[in-house]
């Protein structure tokens, strides 16, 4: 790693230029590792909600076999995995994007030969390896040891789950990115981050499954892309959706992903035109 004391200087070890976005993801990962303790507590705290929701639902299920088509076993599983997925793209991804804009460090990303949106995806990927890894530990420990969650319904549903999870990850990063772009106009992001977090948790189905929402809200949630982040992968996991239904859900996710990608790039161009870098 370091040049000190070795005969061959470390920079000579490089053999070929790496892919720039992978290299960015790796560097972000290294940076995220520097904050692993903070991240551990950030993720851990969100799992308090899992415990609260667990007891709420247990009370609701007493004397009932199923609510909105979900058995108690399935609901338990839903609650734990929903929070596990939610923690994949954590607080740091959004705050890092906003901080770059607020402090003006965004200039460096603008004077490099990089597509800004891809850069954000690459960085989110780096953060997610750490945040997602920690989230996975919590999900497995709490889910398997304490709350006894179910395994995926079938092998096919497990595969669909993973596919939907990946598209959902990209969707969430783009949504967070779009919200963070508002910082160019407001120049202060904390309020934005909080409201974004709250809205996303409701409409993605993290707090309650979409099936339990009142009709009008359910309609909104089903049309918007946010369901693809938590609800869609979980529908697959629990085996609630298969065949043409699954094709439809994945298709909707994919269409939204493409749309968000286009909007994100356009929004960045627009933000770029009004930009006023902070601090001279």
């Amino acid at each position: 790693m370091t040049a000190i004391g070795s005969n061959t200087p470390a920079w000579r070890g490089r053999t070929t230029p790496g892919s720039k976005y992978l290299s960015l993801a790796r560097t972000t990962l290294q940076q995220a590792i520097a904050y692993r303790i903070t991240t551990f507590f950030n993720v851990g705290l969100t799992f308090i909600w899992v415990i609260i929701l667990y007891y709420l639902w247990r009370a609701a299920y007493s004397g009932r076999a199923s609510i909105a088509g979900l058995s108690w076993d399935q609901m338990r599983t839903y609650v734990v995995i929903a929070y596990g997925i939610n923690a994949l793209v954590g607080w740091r991804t959004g705050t890092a994007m906003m901080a770059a804009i607020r402090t003006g460090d965004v200039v460096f990303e603008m004077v490099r030969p990089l597509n800004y949106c891809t850069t954000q995806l690459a960085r989110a990927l780096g953060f997610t390896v750490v945040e997602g890894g920690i989230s996975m530990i919590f999900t497995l420990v709490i889910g398997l040891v304490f709350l006894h969650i179910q395994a995926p319904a079938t092998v096919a549903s497990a595969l669909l789950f993973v596919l939907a999870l990946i598209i959902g990850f990209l969707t969430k990063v783009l949504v967070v990115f779009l919200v963070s772009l508002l910082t160019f106009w407001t120049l202060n992001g904390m309020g934005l981050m909080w409201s974004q977090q709250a809205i996303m948790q409701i409409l993605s189905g993290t707090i309650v499954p979409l099936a339990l929402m009142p009709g009008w809200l359910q309609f909104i949630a089903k049309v918007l892309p946010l369901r693809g982040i938590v609800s869609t992968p979980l529908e697959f996991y629990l085996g609630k959706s298969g065949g043409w239904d699954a094709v439809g859900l994945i298709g909707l996710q994919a269409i939204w992903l493409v749309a968000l990608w286009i909007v994100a790039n356009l929004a960045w161009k627009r933000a770029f035109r009004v930009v006023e870098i902070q601090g001279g």
Partner: protein
Amino acid sequence: MSPIVSAEGLVKQFRRPKKGPGLAGAVRHLLRPRHETVTAVEGVDLSIDEGESVAYVGPNGAGKSTTIKLLTGILVPSAGRVQVCGVRPHVDRQANARNISVVFGQRTQLWWDIPVLESFRLLGDIYSVPDAAYRRTMDELVDVLDLGPLLGVPARQLSLGQRMRCDLGAALVHSPRVLFLDEPTIGLDVAVKARLREFVGSMRAQRGLTVLLTSHDLGDIEELCPRMIMIDKGHIVYDGAFAEVTRRFGWEQKVVVTLADGATDAAARAGAALARVQPVIDETATGLVVTFDSRSISSGEVIKELAVALPVVDLALEETSAESIVRRLYEGNLTFHPADQEITR
């Protein structure tokens, strides 16, 4: 040879929200937002040849940083044309990014929490620097900037001087053709400053690097930049040799007079003696400072008149340095008349 950096009639205007004071002002702004247009750069023309080293100076808020941001593609001009290495920066930002590099004295482009070497490697990847070139550049940078002991240290643990050395190195990993330095020596001690200047000078000599430097430190300018462009309130007020400044604007001269004890009404008497050239006379504890326009009266004559009118103990003629001219410009005490501006380049 066409210039490597050129701008014609470059204008940048910002729209700023206009808010009244206090909570009431904030609420009123929320209901009926008003904006005012601020012009940061107003019709700037630039022409810099490859390999030149140019100082870009002016008081705070004069439009220096805005110009740099226009040249680096960070800002989109409101009007006018700009070209760097044959590329229009805001149109093809990525192509421009490959040709240039920027160092900001007040920001770092190093990744804060990871060893410096990792930042260098990432930059090498971002600019797709081929392996042989990467090694050659790194060997050179590590040698000249003495980066060896710093490469394993996370950027946040570096002192300001060390950080600046690393930042300069990081800016050159992809061998840019144009280097923008925005107040690179701010806050650095004398020894580090000297070293950085030497480094930038040698890069320019060896690689033919074009350097555009903004600085408030005249030492930077004197040592690095034969040419100086001065901007004030969005307009270019001087473009020429640094040494020329004195000749062109140094017409204001000063005579410091020490008077014998008990001299009364000294200022009034001096004023009367020199009435025809309307000097500016300031009283000091020991005498007077007489400031006059050397185009309308010679210093010899001023001294002669003062010696006759007052009980003079000592006289000193103060030469106007480029530094004092720049300082007075910054303080707003020197206005450039259109007649002074015949740009000879």
